[in-house]
């Protein structure tokens, strides 16, 4: 708990972003688990667990986990936007998916990419922290 408090104190935006992203995927996972689909829950738990771990620990593994989360977020956002762009050229018969191509959803995709890049750029700081330096 102390370590988490420390993380929030030293870089509140980073800590809130990390927890926010982890929780978003975890909640999405729970939603799907209740509908009988376990994969989003498994991935959501890994992301949320990873986010929690990197806020508690500042070791080499944390760096690797942040990298994975960052890459995941970028891929998630890019894939969603890519699908949307693809289907603006080809006709998509799935009205259910097409109805999700809204500005709000675009904003989610762009936010994920933005947070991915943000976490990736923070990797340098995590290295400093693990080396005991102040940032």
């Amino acid at each position: 708990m102390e370590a988490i408090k420390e993380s929030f104190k030293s870089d509140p935006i980073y800590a809130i972003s990390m927890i926010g992203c982890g929780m978003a995927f975890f909640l999405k996972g729970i939603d799907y688990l209740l509908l009988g689909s376990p994969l989003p829950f498994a991935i959501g738990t890994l992301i949320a667990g990873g986010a929690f771990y990197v806020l508690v620990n500042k070791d080499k593994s944390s760096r690797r986990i942040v990298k994975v989360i960052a890459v995941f977020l970028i891929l998630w956002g890019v894939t969603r936007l890519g699908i949307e762009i693809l289907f603006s050229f080809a006709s998509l018969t799935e009205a259910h998916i097409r109805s999700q191509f809204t500005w709000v959803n675009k904003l989610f995709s762009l936010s994920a990419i933005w947070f991915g890049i943000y976490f990736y750029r923070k990797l340098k700081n995590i290295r400093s922290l693990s080396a005991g330096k102040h940032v």
Partner: protein
Amino acid sequence: MIKHVAIICLLVISTLKVRGQIDLLRIEQQQMVGQLSGKFALENGSFLKSRDTPSARAVARQYLAKQIEDIGLKPKRQSYRMPNLNPLIDMLFSPFKGANVYTVIPASRKSDNYVVLGAHFDTELDCPGAIDNATGSTLIFSVGKMLYALEERKMNVIIVFFDQEEEELIGSQAFAKFLKAENFNVHSVHTFDMVGWDEDGNKEMELELPTPDLENAYQTKALELGIPLYVTSINSTDHHSFRQVGFQAIGINEAYGKRDSTPYKDTPEDTYETVNFDYLAESTMFVYAVIKEIINGGD
């Protein structure tokens, strides 16, 4: 001589009565198919150009619920959320969300048996869906209305309009699960998908994957009414969802397997003008006769 004249008169009168009934039915059905497929305006003056997006489907649901209410029955809504077919899609997008509209026509005496008549009301994107499947929705509504007018019904009848058939039968899957979870004692499920095309004018209908009992029920009435039937093993529509959870189910349509079926399926040309309303009305009377026989067991 007088006896012969009386018999002829009775035959003429009964033929005219049936003809009159079919004519009246056709007019009602033209109105409903027309409103569902954007030919005629809805009560508020708007037009349902397609029933594809969440908002258009909501309007269609409202319309169908109003139709149910107008004949004195209580419309019910069965909302659902279902995962996508691929878990990777689950990771990227939201689950299916929709709602089926249904009503229960109660048996006139105590019964826990239910006959289910279902048809999907959604369409593919930007398609008016007159034949696919405003015709099926209209058929079950008309049959339900006639069954409700009967003095005696030994079984309950559920009339259900499925959402999202065009998206992997999601609506009917949700409804089948609902019936199973609520322990409905389902006698049989009859689903209708496209009943508005009969180019060769032979009134033929297709039975999809009937059980022997259901095939017999349809064949017996078809022989009486001179309606040609044939059986296929096509399972790409709503009846499949019910068979999957163990219900006795059958699909009934125009002669899709014999290609005497609308060439405009899933296109913007699937319009009111292409519907054969005589075929729809006569098919409706046939289905009504079959379901009446099933629920009243030969009375």
